[in-house]
Every structure is written in structure tokens, then in C-alpha cells.
């Protein structure tokens, strides 16, 4: 790790002012991404600004019935917050199916959204990677790409977005609250994650020094009947090969309301809008679930070793919807 200087700040204004004034600086919160990537020279800031003491670690009721997750709330704390468990179970489930107990005790929910990809070429400074060093090519296109994305890819980058909880947040239409040198912004979460396109180095629409202060969960009654299904190589402490966040209500055998998003298969947490269109008002049957999954995956592009993910994602979607419908039917 390169030498780095350190400051600890106590208020949001100083945090933003300090980082935005120094292009070589970075925020430090849980450190699970920042310290890791500094140690392998993927990130080399000259100065760290520790924001762990900022008063942004609460889960708060919003006027109108939503919840605000403070940006610095730890994954483990949010996962066991009763209001989250009761009103947004897929958020709690996604948090608990991610990382390990130790990492969840360290990592913040804002840091979770800001984490970098786990592509082995991104993490290897000797390899070409357009995301890490624009213009050096994508080693994953013809490399070991079993874990890579089949949706939202470009000829510049096929790295999978690694977050679990972001998948649930995308299904919910959460809103990311930021504060930066130019003031406050509210960014719909689907716009917070950028597709790689020709600029994979740009992952978020944030300016340097802009801080994620909170994540707002909108009031959404259907979210109380939701779940997160994650398929991976081992049952715990592993990233998703395919995952599904689903919230659904059924009335008279037909789907009254549906929210669906995919993880592990796309370059950003993937809202499954094509599948939602098929399912909206459709009978809650395996046939409809299969048609919806196939519609979502129609534009999927395999890259050699990850071709299996298309079928795996289809089956994971159908299973998640089936289990959701069974639970709804017996409720």
C-alpha cells in the first residue's frame, strides 16, 4: 500500500469540503473496499478522510411512511432493524446473504452501493482493464469470465455488479440522497448505477467529494411480501451467480403488483422491467413466470464461460416467483 495521510472529521460539511478540495483524497468508512483496493494498488489516494464519526448511522422514519437508511448505517444493523425486517424483508434478507458477519459489522450501506467490482482483471494491476485504466482493453472478454455479466454489457466491460442489497433497493425504487460541494441531490437508484457503455470507469453520477448521506425506501405496501433468492457456488460468504429480489401481491389468482430485480448477472443491479410487464395482471402460474423470465433474458449476451448464467437466471426467477406465489396463496 502506498503511504497515505489521514484525517478524521466530525461533521458532514467538513467531510465534503475536505474531500472536494483535494482530488487525491477519498472518503473512508467501513474500509472493506477502500483498504482492500489500496493494498493491491487499484486505488491510490494520497489522503483518507475518515467519516465514521458523522451522524449518519440511523434508520429513520420519513414523513409519508418511508424509511431513511443513514449512509453510514452498518449492514448488520440495518438487517436487524425491525422496521426493515417487517416492511422490506427482501432488503434484510439481501443484507444477511451478503459477505460475512465480520464484514457486515464493518461495511456501511452507502459503501455497499459504492463498492467496486470483483472482476479479477480489475483487481490485477498487471492486466488490461478499461474500468481501472481506461483504454487498456477488457481482459475478461476472452478471459476467465465465468462470474461475469450477461446483461448490460458492452465491448468495454462485462464486470458483474457485486451488491446484493442494491438489487432489492432497485426493485423498491429507492432514492439515494447525496450531499456535495454543489448542494444536495436526490437520485433515483436506477440512475445511480451507470451502464459501462464506452465509459466503464464512470460507475455513478457523483462528483468528487459528493457523499451518499442516506438511502430512502419509499412507502410500498407490497414490499412487505418480498424476498431475496441468491444462488451461488457455496451456501454462504460468496457472491451471487444469479439472484432475484421479488415483491408480489396476488388477487383472484392474478398478479396485482410486481417488483422484480436481478443480481449476479448484470453490470448494474438490474430492474427486470420486461418481466414485470409480462407479469402485471397475468395469472400467477409457472407458465407466466417462465414467459416473464424469458422476456427479461432475451437480450442476454453470453461470453464463453458464463453462458450457463442465462439458464440459471431463468430458473432462479421462476423459482423465486413460484415460492412467492405459494406463500401469497396460503397467506
Amino acid at each position: 500500500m502506498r503511504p497515505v495521510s489521514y484525517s478524521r472529521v466530525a461533521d458532514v460539511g467538513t467531510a465534503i469540503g475536505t474531500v472536494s478540495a483535494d482530488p487525491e483524497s477519498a472518503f473512508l468508512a467501513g474500509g472493506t473496499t477502500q483498504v482492500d483496493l489500496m493494498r493491491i494498488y487499484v486505488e491510490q489516494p494520497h489522503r483518507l478522510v475518515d467519516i465514521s464519526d458523522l451522524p449518519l448511522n440511523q434508520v429513520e422514519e420519513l414523513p409519508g411512511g418511508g424509511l431513511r437508511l443513514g449512509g453510514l448505517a452498518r449492514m448488520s444493523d440495518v438487517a436487524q432493524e425491525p422496521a426493515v425486517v417487517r416492511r422490506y424483508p427482501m432488503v434484510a434478507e439481501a443484507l444477511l446473504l451478503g459477505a460475512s458477519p465480520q464484514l457486515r459489522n464493518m461495511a456501511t450501506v452507502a459503501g455497499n452501493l459504492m463498492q467496486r467490482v470483483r472482476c479479477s482483471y480489475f483487481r490485477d494491476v498487471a492486466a488490461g482493464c478499461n474500468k481501472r485504466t481506461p483504454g487498456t482493453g477488457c481482459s475478461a472478454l476472452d478471459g476467465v469470465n465465468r462470474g461475469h455479466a450477461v446483461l448490460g454489457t458492452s465491448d468495454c466491460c462485462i464486470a458483474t455488479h457485486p451488491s446484493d442489497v442494491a438489487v432489492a433497493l432497485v426493485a423498491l425504487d429507492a432514492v439515494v440522497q447525496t450531499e456535495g460541494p454543489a448542494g444536495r441531490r436526490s437520485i433515483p437508484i436506477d440512475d445511480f448505477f451507470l451502464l459501462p457503455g464506452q465509459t466503464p470507469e464512470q460507475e455513478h453520477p457523483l462528483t468528487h467529494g459528493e457523499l451518499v448521506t442516506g438511502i430512502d425506501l419509499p412507502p410500498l405496501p407490497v414490499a412487505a411480501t418480498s424476498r431475496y433468492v441468491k444462488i451461488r457456488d457455496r451456501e454462504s460468504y460468496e457472491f451471487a451467480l444469479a439472484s432475484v429480489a421479488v415483491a408480489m401481491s396476488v388477487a383472484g389468482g392474478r398478479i396485482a403488483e410486481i417488483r422484480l430485480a436481478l443480481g449476479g448477472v448484470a453490470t448494474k443491479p438490474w430492474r427486470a422491467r420486461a418481466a414485470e410487464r409480462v407479469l402485471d395482471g397475468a395469472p400467477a402460474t409457472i407458465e407466466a413466470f417462465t414467459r416473464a423470465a424469458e422476456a427479461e433474458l432475451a437480450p442476454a449476451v453470453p461470453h464463453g464461460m458464463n453462458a450457463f448464467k442465462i439458464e440459471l437466471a431463468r430458473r432462479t426467477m421462476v423459482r423465486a416467483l413460484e415460492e412467492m406465489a405459494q406463500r401469497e396463496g396460503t397467506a
Partner: protein
Amino acid sequence: MKSYQAIRTTPAPDSAVVRGPGEVEVRLRVNGATRTMSVEPRVSLLDALRDRLELTGTKKGCNQGACGACTVWVDRRRVLACLTLAISCENREVATIEGLADGDTLHPMQQAFLDADALQCGYCTPGQIMSAVALLAEGHAGDDIEIREWMSGNVCRCAAYPHIRAAIRRVRDEKGSGDAAR
């Protein structure tokens, strides 16, 4: 949980105290004692414990947050010392395997690991024990499935997992030891 109240802040000029990048004096509370050392801000809590404070019970396995061998407690929560900067632990309580025993009397979890033969090479054991004691304090040891899930952050390449679970069950089932974490 409290109700949300908007607090408007404005960016302040760069007024934060800058420490480093050279060595700076860092004061840590480790196992109840205050320890002062001179380290660069980039030094991990793991390296500070092992190389500066000679607390070598905490092990360096992967050094990238994948194995759990470096598990310690910061402010009573189990965390990974390899991904924690030592300087960021000022004003926090750090606890390591060396602080677990009461004098010459082993912590019940340490004794249970011996009794249940819950190790082979022993390299992951300090991390396993720090995680296991926290696991009981968290209330995540209801059955073997739960223990397995909530111990998944501690990898054992000797695969002593069945005996590690047996040791945890033993402490769990001893009366009054469920809150053994300090």
C-alpha cells in the same frame, strides 16, 4: 429509531487535521490497556497488533478480508483487523484473543475448543474463537445450521468445522454462558 428531521449543512473549507503520511503517534485501547505507538496511517490494525504490540495471537491469513483469521472485536463487534486501519481505531475498544482468558483460567470457549479437539493446525483458531464468542453474544447459535451460517466468515483449511460447531454447542449449552462476550 427516531423520526427523520432534515438538517441542512454547508460544505466547510478543508479544515480537517492532516496526520501522516509519515509515522504519527497513535494511541489504542487494546484488551483494556492503553498502548501508544508510532505508525504510518496506512498500517492495518492487524500489523499494528502483531508487529508493534507483539500481540501475535491474531493471525494474518489472506490479508484481504476473505478468511477471518484476523478476527478481533472493535467496540464489541467482531471485525477483520486486516481491512481496518490502526489509526481509525483511536477512541475505540479493541479486544484480541490475548485478552480473552481470565488470568490463567481459559475463557470457556478456549477450553471448549481444546476439549472438543476443534483444531488441527491451529492457524485459524484465534479468529474462530473470537468469532465464536461474539456469535453467542449475538444470539446466532440456535442450531447447527445457524452456527454454520454465522461462522462462515471464518475459513478453516483443515476443515475442523464439525468439532468447531461441537465446541460452540458445548459453551452454548453450559448454563449462563450465552453472554460470555464482554
